[in-house]
């Protein structure tokens, strides 16, 4: 404040003297005009400054501010400051994989997927790690409204190849297979993850529950359900559905190695308000997959979702 005042005073006085000098040299009434003009210039400038001036307001150049942020504990920073902290780390060391990964995740979470992808790809050039491939795949998926695009699938495959034990890439590969209509491949991916995870691992429960939900949804084989039932009366529709469910049960009796089929059958029986038949379907599924803990976990997850007692087939 003092330095600012002194500088402004010095500038004002210099300008006033420079302005008044020709008039002062002239002598006569010009002198008075010169002094008045100089004074008005200096004081008027201060007055005009004072209209909106903020003499106490400090400057905030970027570098000193970042130095202060660097010195602070990251946990005490706001999200925007944390983001800038990460950006600063990346600026200072373009090969800082961890900073890039965290920045990429943060950007993806705040709907800035393109930039997130760029940072993750930079990190991958330095260190092709499974978690980075996985983050890349997820960012691409988010960018595409949750669809596992071929690019995302490539990233998940790379992640799965780097670390087959990592649950997320396998889960999304299963999702890709499911979106492509390959339910058995999806069940295989998801079952394999579930089999690898501990019983009390929260991921295991989440994945099993989600997978059971998806795999138990009826598959119309590409047909449009609305078109199939168009013009039919309700009793006819119910009869048609019942026939389809019976057909599914018959097919499973012939080909029992279809976990998705058992899940669908159990769900369908629940929709028919027949929990006993649903329990039986799940029990037959468990029997068919007695040596596959992944598939059994999927069947158990659906049973839990429908609050069904486990029974023998």
């Amino acid at each position, binding site marked *: 404040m003092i330095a*600012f005042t002194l500088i402004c005073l010095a500038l004002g006085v210099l300008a006033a003297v420079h*302005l008044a000098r020709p008039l002062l040299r002239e002598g006569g009434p010009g002198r008075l005009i010169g002094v008045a003009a100089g004074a008005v210039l200096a004081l008027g400038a201060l007055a005009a400054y004072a209209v909106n001036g903020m003499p106490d307001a400090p400057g905030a150049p970027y570098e000193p501010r970042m130095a202060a942020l660097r010195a602070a504990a990251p946990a005490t920073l706001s999200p925007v400051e944390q983001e800038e902290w990460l950006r600063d780390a990346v600026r200072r060391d373009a090969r800082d994989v961890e900073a890039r990964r965290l920045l990429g995740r943060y950007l993806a979470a705040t709907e800035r997927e*393109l930039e997130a992808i760029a940072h993750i790809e930079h990190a991958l050039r330095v260190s092709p790690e499974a978690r980075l491939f996985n983050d890349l795949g997820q960012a691409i998926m988010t960018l595409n409204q949750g669809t596992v695009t071929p690019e995302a699938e490539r990233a998940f495959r790379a992640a799965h190849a780097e670390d087959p034990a990592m649950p997320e890439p396998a889960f999304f590969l299963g999702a890709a297979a499911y979106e492509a209509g390959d339910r058995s491949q999806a069940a295989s991916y998801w079952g394999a993850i579930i089999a690898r995870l501990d019983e009390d691992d929260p991921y295991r429960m989440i994945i099993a529950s989600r997978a059971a939900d998806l795999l138990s949804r009826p598959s119309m084989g590409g047909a449009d359900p609305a078109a199939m039932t168009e013009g039919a009366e309700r009793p006819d529709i119910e009869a048609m559905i019942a026939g389809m469910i019976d057909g599914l049960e018959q097919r499973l009796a012939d080909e029992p190695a279809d976990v998705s089929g058992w899940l669908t059958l159990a769900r369908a029986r629940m929709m028919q308000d027949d929990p006993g038949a649903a329990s039986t379907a799940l029990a037959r599924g468990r029997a068919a997959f007695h040596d596959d803990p992944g598939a059994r976990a999927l069947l158990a997850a659906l049973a839990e979702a429908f609050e069904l007692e486990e029974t023998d087939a």
Partner: protein
Amino acid sequence: MIAEIGRYLVALAFLACIAQTLLSWRGADQGGRSGAARAGAAAAEIAVIAAGAAFLLLVISFIRSDFSIAYVAANSHVDKPLLYKISGAWGGHEGSMLLWCWILALFGLGLARIGPKDAALRARAVSFQGLLSTLFFAFLAFASNPFERVFPAPIRGADLNPILQDPLLAIHPPMLYVGYVGLSAAFAIAAAGLVQRSGGRALAGALRPWALGAWTSLTAGIALGAWWAYYELGWGGWWFWDPVENASFMPWLLGAALVHSAIATEKRGAFPGWTVFLALIAYVLSILGAFLVRSGVLTSVHAFALDPERGVWILGMLGVSAVAGFALFALRAGSLGEGDGFEPTSREAFIGANNLLLAVTAGVVMVGTLYPLFVDIMGWPMISVGPPYFDASATPLLILAAALMPMAAFMPWANGGAKPGLKQMRAAFLLVPVAGVIIAFIAFGAPVLAVAAGGVGAWALCGAAMDVGVHWKAAKVRAARLAVTGRALAHAGVGFIALGGAADASRPPDIHRALAPGESMTIAGRSLTLEEVRRADGPNFMADRATIRVDGRSVVRPERRFYPAANQTTREVGLGSDLRGDIYLSVGEARTREDGVMAYEVRAAFHPLVWMLGLGAFLVVMGGGLALTARLMAGAPARARAGDGVKAAGTADAAQARAT
């Protein structure tokens, strides 16, 4: 503290401009050599130094990324390359207004130091320039201060608009502002001359170099803007009749009329009132341009301040300048005198016709630009006035003006005589290549206007060549030769622009294809093969760069960029240039084609002879520069006339009179 010192310096410059206005006015009343006049000049110096220092502090704030300054936070980002951090200082409204004000102050100082030889006229002109500066510095200090603060200061800036992050855009605005603001000096001299009752000839002589310098700079600024639009905006045009382009084109047209009319007034006393009127209205239209760009009344790629309150300020400045200038003109136009009269086939008549066409064109452009605003104000259904209107109205007028242009140089002053002039020009002989060009354009299936423009372009080129051939030898002193060369270059530039524009208007349709790497497409007989698309990230953007091989030889690399800070995508065009024209390529995003293949949207265009536009603009600027140099060289001995004798000045003046 830097920001606050900057704000104080802006205030100091504002007060200095007031002092400049008042003291110079008193100095002019005292004959222009008193202490008051010198104090007025000192005030102009203070304004220049204060505004220049404020601008420097703003640039430093950009370099330091001080986001406590709202303007820096809104137009910069820490990751931006240094060049664009610096150019960001004039990339937005407030900073560009500071630059505008600084240039205004510089012209005030220029008038005080090298202004009209008549001391009283000079002091009066400095006073008027001070008044114009005061208006703008008040606007800057109280309504558009670039040192406005924001607390808490954001940690990140919003970044400069990515399309402005271009080397050409770093120099385009300063050139344009020198042009716009330079016209203020012509305004100030004209207004001062009306107050002083200086007489038309003296006034025309005094304002001509300022008008010429400003118009040359405005030409350079517009040309750089057109070039930038051509390669940066991604759709391949160089002139869109965009309202903001029109806002710069109107003062350019009137500036062109002014530099020619001032010659006739200075040499023969013709059109004194018209010349002074042009000097006044050209600057008023410059302020109108500022209003259109900065008030928010228009939506355009160029419009960068959407603030109606600022618009009211600028409208006020426009009103004060226009009322002061035109009221003076109404009261004192009679003091400008009358010329000696001239024949309809004299050079004055051709200059007059040229002026009429340029002025009518400016009027037509103004109607087309302002009519949608008028409709909006009246609450009528919204309309837009676009290229069809301007092509049908303004372009034919410009073609006609360009057709008359080469002949004026061969017409004698005053008494006229078209026949000897055209004979000296060998006009009949020149029509042969012109006919050849017209036939070529017709053969290529060019539209009618393009055929006409092509023919006129060839005519102007031939005329310019003949002008040098005939008049250069006749000119005996260096200044006169420079003047002839300048005129011929400028007229040749117009010819090249007409030819280039005509060729571009006759170009084949653009092609849009989704190409996968390895696939090809053809345009204008050239094969384009997409070889690959790679990541090519920059410091503050991410980019996909395509490599496209043209005819299996040269390579063009268009890019598609994403600027995350601004959250904006741009297309960086790839140009493959040779004498035939430009292959113009831009690449879009990747998408899966119907056949399931991942492909990139590629847009290809061929712009034949487009280089002629650039060459033409360069020649016009060179011509203007040479003419200004010639004027200054001829003026130097004239100034020495008072002390060193009459002979040297008489020689130079006579030589230039013959030449121009």
